[in-house]
Structure formats: C-alpha cells, structure tokens
C-alpha cells in the first residue's frame, strides 16, 4: 500500500497515509456497493427492470446506478447515532463487509431450520447461486423479459450476450429498454409525478375504492378456493422435492432487467414445508408487483426484496465501524479532527463524522467544530 508520496513522511504520517488510502478505497467500494444494493433491492419498480436486480447480480456485474437511492451523508449521520446505541457484533469485520465476495451456498433462509447462516452477522447475504444461474438460464434459451409484465423482444437481443459480457449487457440495456415503456405506463408516470402528497393519497384512496374493491372482497375466498387438478399436480410434485435440492424447477423474470431467476428445488420445498428462503420470498414479492400492475395500474407500491433492510442495517454498521476505525488514528492530527478521546471500546457516537469531513476536503471545519464544542 506504500506509494511514492508516502516515502517522505514521518512514521506516523506514513501510517496515516496508508490508513487514508485504505479508507478511501473502502469508502469507494462501500458507496458503490450500498448504492447498488439499495437501488437494486427494490423489486419490480421499473418496466425496464431498473430496479429488479438481485443485489448479488448487481455486485457481480457492477451495474450502473444513479444516486437517487443512496442515503445522503446526513442520513448516514442520523443512522450512525441509532446504530451506535448498540455495539455491533465483534465479528462485524470492516474488510469483510466492504470487500466480501459472494460465497457458495443458496439463498439464506429464515428460522433456525433454514441453515446457511451467513458470515459476519449479516443475514440474507447475497449469494453466488442466484448470481450465476439466471444468466445461464437466460442464455440457454429462456426469454429475457424486459419488464415485469411486459416482456419485450427488444430486450431479447441482450440475452445471448449475458454470459460473455455481463457488464456491457448492463450498460446497454437502458437504451433498449427506454423505448419499451408502453403508453399506459407513461401516463401513469406523469400522473403520479405531477401529484402532491395529498393528491397522491387521494388517488390511492380512489384507486383502492374504485379499482380493486371487488378484488379485495374476493381475495380471501379466492385464496381459499379448492385447487384444480393441474394445481394439485404441481403441489404433489413439489411435495416430493428434496429440501436442499439445487435443480432448477422454474424461472421467473425478477432478476436485473427482467433476467430470469431460477427457482430451485429448495425454494419450492420450503414453500411446501419449512421456513421460506430468499428465493421464495423475492419471487412472491415480484408476483405481488405483477398483480398490482394488473389490478391497480395507478397505484404504486414499492416491493423491496429481502435484501434491502439487511443491507441498510449493514451499511449503518459499516459506517459506524469506519468512523471508529478512523478516529482511533485521527488523534495524530488534532488540527484536523480531535477524535482521540473516542475509542473503539467506548462506542459512543462521535461528535461528528470526522473521516467523511476529512475526505471531502473540509477537515479544518471538523477540527473547528470540535473545538467549538469543547
């Protein structure tokens, strides 16, 4: 990690230079990772699959994102305080959280019986299975839908390329997909975007009252109705599947940009009996989104997948650790940031977010703030 610039520094300076470099790199990785995860863990948001990626897919292929889902720095500060009320587990390792790679296994399950407890105290860790298989499945001939409900042939052009160059696939997709939104959806967009919050609520009430009342009334009876013969066949078939089986049973296009995600034997077996795993839950959330588009096209519900809240929590923990990790060393530079009194063991919230201040070039303010407080 040494570089030429560090050569003329004092030992302490050199030490700091190393730390600084590590922090900047980790910070970049973290921001990219969290941005992708927050963005992509929202399910079924966009016709063209803007938000349909499994987080692991997004991570693996470095998909482009915009900043709209990244919490602001102030958000990080606010959540920092909250997270700091509890010490993160000792095994929350900064390096692992920031630079962890997807590891083999399947989607994690809930309940003790689910097994596959992920490392580092994170639940619902993105996994390798759902990263790799969708692409294989797609390239093997499965249609790649451009959106949740509107599979478009424009998007199929990308299917063959996925295995070879997933990054370019990701980069190319928006231009294909941008043209695919149908008129109905465009109307819905402008309608919703032009409304004020109160009007939004009113429109929601209207939609609820006019569009889906009958559906609501029939929801429970419909769920309780007897199964047809074909449905019984499916249920019987699934009942005999091995609990840990990894063979693909079916696919659904809830991956990035409508990529087909395979649902394996385990996903189905857990639906039949046992604790659900991420694959089952995320598939169901996707279907709920599809249903809403069908029965209440004007109503907009955002269905996150099961990774969202875990990653939000992980982000807060990492930011907390980064702050404590940095402040342990920033006492070498009291003019920049007086954090020496704040130690990792204390885990009380730092008075301000020193490392971020420093990185954005406003370190002097950080020190001034602290002096004013003291």
């Amino acid at each position, binding site marked *: 990690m040494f570089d030429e610039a560090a050569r003329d520094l004092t030992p302490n300076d050199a030490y700091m230079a190393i730390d600084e470099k590590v922090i900047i790199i980790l910070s970049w990785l973290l921001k990219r990772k969290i941005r992708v995860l927050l963005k992509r863990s929202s399910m079924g948001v*966009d016709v063209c699959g803007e938000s349909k990626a499994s987080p692991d897919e997004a991570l693996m292929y470095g998909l482009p994102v915009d900043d709209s889902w990244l919490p602001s720095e102030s958000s990080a500060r606010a959540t920092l305080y909250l997270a700091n009320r509890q010490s993160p587990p000792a095994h929350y390792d900064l390096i692992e959280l920031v630079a962890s790679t997807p590891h083999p296994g399947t989607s994690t399950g809930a309940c003790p019986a689910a097994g596959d407890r992920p490392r580092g105290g994170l639940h619902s860790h993105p996994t390798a299975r759902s990263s790799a298989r969708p692409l294989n499945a797609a390239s093997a001939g499965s249609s790649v839908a451009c959106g949740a409900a509107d599979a478009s042939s424009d998007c199929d052009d990308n299917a063959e390329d996925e295995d070879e160059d997933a990054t370019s696939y990701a980069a190319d997709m928006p231009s294909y997909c941008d043209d695919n939104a149908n008129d109905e959806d465009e109307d819905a967009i402008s309608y919703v975007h032009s409304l004020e919050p109160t009007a939004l609520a009113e429109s929601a009430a209207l939609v609820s009252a006019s569009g889906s009342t009958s559906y609501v009334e029939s929801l429970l009876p419909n769920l309780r109705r007897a199964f047809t013969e074909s449905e019984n066949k499916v249920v019987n078939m699934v009942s005999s599947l091995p609990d840990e089986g990894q063979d693909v049973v079916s696919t659904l296009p809830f991956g990035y940009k409508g990529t087909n995600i395979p649902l394996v034997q385990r996903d189905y077996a857990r639906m039949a009996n046992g604790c659900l795993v991420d694959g089952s839950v995320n598939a169901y959330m996707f279907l709920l989104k599809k249903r809403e588009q069908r029965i209440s*096209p004007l109503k907009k519900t955002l269905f996150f997948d099961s990774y969202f809240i875990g990653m939000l929590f992980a982000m807060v923990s990492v930011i907390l650790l980064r702050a404590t990790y940095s402040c342990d060393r920033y006492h070498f530079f009291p003019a920049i940031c007086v954090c020496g009194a704040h130690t990792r063991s204390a885990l009380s919230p730092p008075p301000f977010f020193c490392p971020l201040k420093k990185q954005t070039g406003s370190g002097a303010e950080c020190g001034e703030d602290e002096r004013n407080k003291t």
Partner: protein
Amino acid sequence: MNVKKIFDVHKIIIPINTDNTHWTLAVVSFSNEEMRIEYLDSLAGNGQNDLVDILVHFLKEEADRLKFTIKTWVVLPPRNDIPRQVNGLDCGVFMCYFANFMSVDAPLTFTAEDIPHFRRRMITDVYNGHIA
C-alpha cells in the same frame, strides 16, 4: 411504471429477515402528508425497534433530500389483531400473505389454519408465475 424516487409510491412493502431466524414485514404508507410505518410480526414480537428506527431515519433523510413534505411520522405499535403463527416454521408464509393483503389494503382476516392451504397456493402461484 418508472418510479425514480422512493416517495413516488403510495406504499412500500419491506420483507425483513431477522438474524436468519424470522421473517417479518414493514409497511410504509403515505396519507395526507403523513408517513405511517407499520410492523407486522406473526410471532407478536415487540417491534424490532432498531431496524424500524433505521428505516425511519433513512426515510426522513430521503424525504429531506428529495424535498418531500411529510408533516407527521407515525410508527404504529405492533398490532395485536393480526394472524399469529402457531409453530416455528410459518413466519415466511405469514409475511408473504401479510404483504399480499396489505398491498391491496385488505383486512388481515386469514388465520393460522389457512396457512397449509396458503403454502400450496403459494407454490402454484410461483410455479405458474401469476397470482390470481
């Protein structure tokens, strides 16, 4: 539908996996400049305060950043009138059907006795790629 911002929606459904042991659901809804956060736990837990707090602050900061006016923030206490699981395995199914019902504003009128049937229904729905 092309939702660019988190507040362009009427409702947000968030499945929560707690420590790989339990599934619960958070539902965020908007009404008359009020943001209402509801936490549904089929085991009648006490509300996962940390996760909900972090979620609330995330939403608040996003609202500030996006200049979205929300006058009232309401975190509802855990509801006692929701269906409850009677074993240690059904939490995920309960959570999915909470999402199913809440997303269409339907009352949570099913019971634990429905869950075996709902499991089969979920299988056929997912297999067929369609919720009727």
